[in-house]
């Protein structure tokens, strides 16, 4: 048995699908954010895997992932700040209940 790219791509795909599922179904904003992290992570894996298998001599994929992680961190921090602020105002962080700004 050889370790081909397939074995890396499949879990990444499943992880992404889980992220999608979670993002769409969850109500809690933090849970949504978590699902988002899953998706991001799946994409990161893909970058790395493609870089490693197809272009072993270069480092673009790795760097991209590096930056993606940094940005993800920033984004999460900001999102959580917003969520907490929202919680203070609305005492609730369910997306469906927070629709004051709708329309």
């Amino acid at each position: 048995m050889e370790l081909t790219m397939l074995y890396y791509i499949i879990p990444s795909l499943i992880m992404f699908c889980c992220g999608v599922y979670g993002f769409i179904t969850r109500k809690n904003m933090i849970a949504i954010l978590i699902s988002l992290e899953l998706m991001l992570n799946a994409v990161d894996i893909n970058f790395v895997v493609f870089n490693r298998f197809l272009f072993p001599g270069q480092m673009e994929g790795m760097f991209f992932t590096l930056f993606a992680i940094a940005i993800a961190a920033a984004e999460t921090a900001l999102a959580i700040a917003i969520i907490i602020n929202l919680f203070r105002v609305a005492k609730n962080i369910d997306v469906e209940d927070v629709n004051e700004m709708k329309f």
Partner: protein
Amino acid sequence: MDITMPLMILAIPLGMFLLLGLFGNKMSHKLAGWLGTLGMGTALVLAYTTAYQYFFSGSELFINAAGERLQHAVFDYTWLEFTEKLIIKLGFLLDPISAMMLVVITTISFMVHLYSLGYMHGEKGFQRYYAFLSLFSFSMLGLVVATNIFQMYIFWELVGASSYLLIGFYYTKPSAVAASKKAFIVTRFADLGFLIGILILSFYSSTFDFVTMTSNPQSVFASTAGTMFMGGSVLTWGLVLIFMGGMGKSAMMPLHIWLPDAMEGPTPVSALIHAATMVVAGVFLVARMFPVYIVQESALEIVTVVGALTALYAAIVACTQIDIKRVLAFSTISQIAFMVVSLGVARPDFHEGLGYMASMFHLFTHAMFKALLFLGAGALIHAVHSNDYTAMGGLRKYMPITHISFLIGCLAIAGIPPFAGFFSKDEILTAAFNNSPLWGIWMTGVAGLTAFYMFRLYYRIFWWNNPDYGHHTPHDGPWTMSLPLIILATISCVAGFIPFGEFVTWNGHEYIIHLDWTVATTSIVVAVCAIALATVMYRKENAIPTRMKNAMKGLWTAAYNRFYFDELYIFITHKIIFNLVSRPIAWFDRHIIDGTMDSFATMTNYASEKIKGLQSGSVQQYVWVYLVGALLLAGAVIVFVI
């Protein structure tokens, strides 16, 4: 010829209308009345002078070497230019019939002006009344001197409008308002025919001008040949439609229904407009176009049939009415129908178109004696304060002047020599017999009926019984009312001796009237019999009329209800036009057309309401939609592209 005088004939009444209409309410009644009468008097003098000049000056403008009377346009201003050929001009055409009409109109109008001073004394809106009278006189004079058919149409409409205003003079009375509305709309409907007729004729002849049209109709209307429309030649259609205009104004069946109701107006107005002048406009119109009509004899036959039916119908109805003005109104319809028949039976190959001359002659005499009768009726109504003869009786003692003049009027209309009506009616009957014995006998019968219903009226008013008049003993009116009666009575006595044929014939050639004694004797015998019958039935109060009525109940009821023409019209207008056309259209407009427009708005609203849901603000929904969209796209790319 100098244009000042003809111009003034038109300008004075118009000026009076403007003066009295704009500043009338600042004047006293007396001033306004006399101003109007004086104006009309001046116009009368001018018109007489003009007519005199036309007939007797012998100027080559008016009569050529062969003794033919000519048509002469004294002036003809361009008023509105449609195309190079189709031009409406306002002019003044002098020819035998217009000169004759000038005399008739100014005479009657002056009499009515004078009479109204007494009759309308103290009425509210006296100035307005005189203003309208002046407007009417102006329009009527303009109508008869029209040089072209469109000028005639213009004044035709104006007389219609002034008639509307005068019928509705007592505007607070709903019946008067309704009558005026009816008169206007019915004649408007007829005018529609007139207008279409004008359009058709002018389309083929490229002219409005009477002289051009009538001088050589064969070639002017040559282009109509062969053009058929629904089984009739175009020229027939045009002429019949023009005659339809005449039917409206002259109250021919079935467009007569407005005239009896028009009696709601003041009585002098009825005398002027609805007996002597405006209602003969239709006859005048056909006479004006007569040279064109004889090109197309089928049109003339239609004219005859309409006239004959109307004459009989109106005479029968007149026998049953109890409102004296209505009786006179139906008598007017019947007499005008005589003139129409006379025109219809006139053929150029018989005695220089005798029927034409007879028609005009009858128009002239009828105007005089019918105005006399109406003014007499006015005096009676003024005295008794009622329109119904049931409220009258035995009045000969109280109102001698009215009595005598009314009697003269009745004799004249019944056709007893030597009164005016005899001569003109006799010519008509001669012409009718010449055309076809059917029309001759028919019209003689109608003449007999005329004598009967007129004397029925006469006896019921002046004999019959002596009701109690209480404190208000009826008496003759003031001199302003009596004088016109006397004058008109005199004219009615002598007018028959005017050698009318020397003045008026269809082609301008002189024609010496000679009585056809067979016809004359017949008609005199018939008239005398009818008068005798009326004398038996109505001279003293008795039960014969009631028995007669019961004997012919069906006929009597139908005639009393004017053979249900009004009901028919009400049915057509209210039930059909209003309920079956207008209301559905209005409904259609509100609900279908407008509904469609509104539904666009509603649909837009609905759609945006729906689309609004998509913009829910729910990120999850966005993601889902985005993702599904992206997947579909990706799937499509994978399957179809890669």
